[in-house]
């Protein structure tokens, strides 16, 4: 019987030393937020390159990255302390905006502003998790539950927040089953959920 994948941290330094893994992990992380990354007027490989760079450098909103690993990265989750979230998200946006050709920056920012309005704001303490993704060939084995559950346990008794697309019924069901509850009845495309300590 195959061993269960191990839940492991992935450091930025490790990814700097292994650019191929950084790219592969970036591809996986990007797959968790298709609506967001599809807004960028860039070819997909350039977006993945940009996210790989962010994974390999400190200061962005994927401050902590964990994987479920069994020889390959089967599932990923990223997180950041809430006080660092706004600045680190802006740093991430600035880094990706750098890749957008000059004439398209203004249009892109307009689109991004509309996207931001569709995301329920979270002004709170605790920790924020994102980029929950399972490798396509490994889906249906409970690995999403594995990364979210294990990361939540490691964070201990603190609030943990996330966003989920309101139409992503399987993800909503997963988060509800792990104790995450909607923060409001607001009509946001990306609803905020919180797990209380």
């Amino acid at each position: 019987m195959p061993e269960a994948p191990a839940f492991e941290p992935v450091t930025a330094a490790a990814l700097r030393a292994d650019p191929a893994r950084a790219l592969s992990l970036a591809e996986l992380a990007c797959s968790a937020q298709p609506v967001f990354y599809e807004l960028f007027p860039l070819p997909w490989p350039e977006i993945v390159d940009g996210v790989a760079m962010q994974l390999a450098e400190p200061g962005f909103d994927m401050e902590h990255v964990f994987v479920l690993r069994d020889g390959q990265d089967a599932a990923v989750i990223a997180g950041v302390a809430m006080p660092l979230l706004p600045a680190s998200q802006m740093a991430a946006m600035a880094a990706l905006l750098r890749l957008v050709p000059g004439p398209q920056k203004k249009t892109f920012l307009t689109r991004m502003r509309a996207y931001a309005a569709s995301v329920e704001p979270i002004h709170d303490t605790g920790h924020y998790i994102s980029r929950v993704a399972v490798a396509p060939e490994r889906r249906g084995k409970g690995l999403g539950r594995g990364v979210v559950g294990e990361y939540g346990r490691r964070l201990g008794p603190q609030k943990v927040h996330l966003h989920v697309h309101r139409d992503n019924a399987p993800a909503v069901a997963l988060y509800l089953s792990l104790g995450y509850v909607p923060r409001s009845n607001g009509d946001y495309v990306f609803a905020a959920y919180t797990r209380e300590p």
Partner: protein
Amino acid sequence: MTIEPTEIALRLKPLFREAFPDADTDSFGPGTAADDVVGWDSMAHVGLMAAIEDEFQVQFDPDEVTGFANVGELVALIARKVDDA
């Protein structure tokens, strides 16, 4: 390469006007902070920083993107980055 703060402030003016079209950017001074400015939200901030990078041919580190409290500190940051470039 060095650049005078007065020149930085001058070259920032059109960038401010572009980033914050609803604000009275002519009244901006060293003490002007984001909270004082109509429309200086996160998206406008990111757009401004991208425009500054293009104008001054510098690249901000992640912690520098939001690492200033007011326009005076932004000017000092740009001067430092141009110096280091």
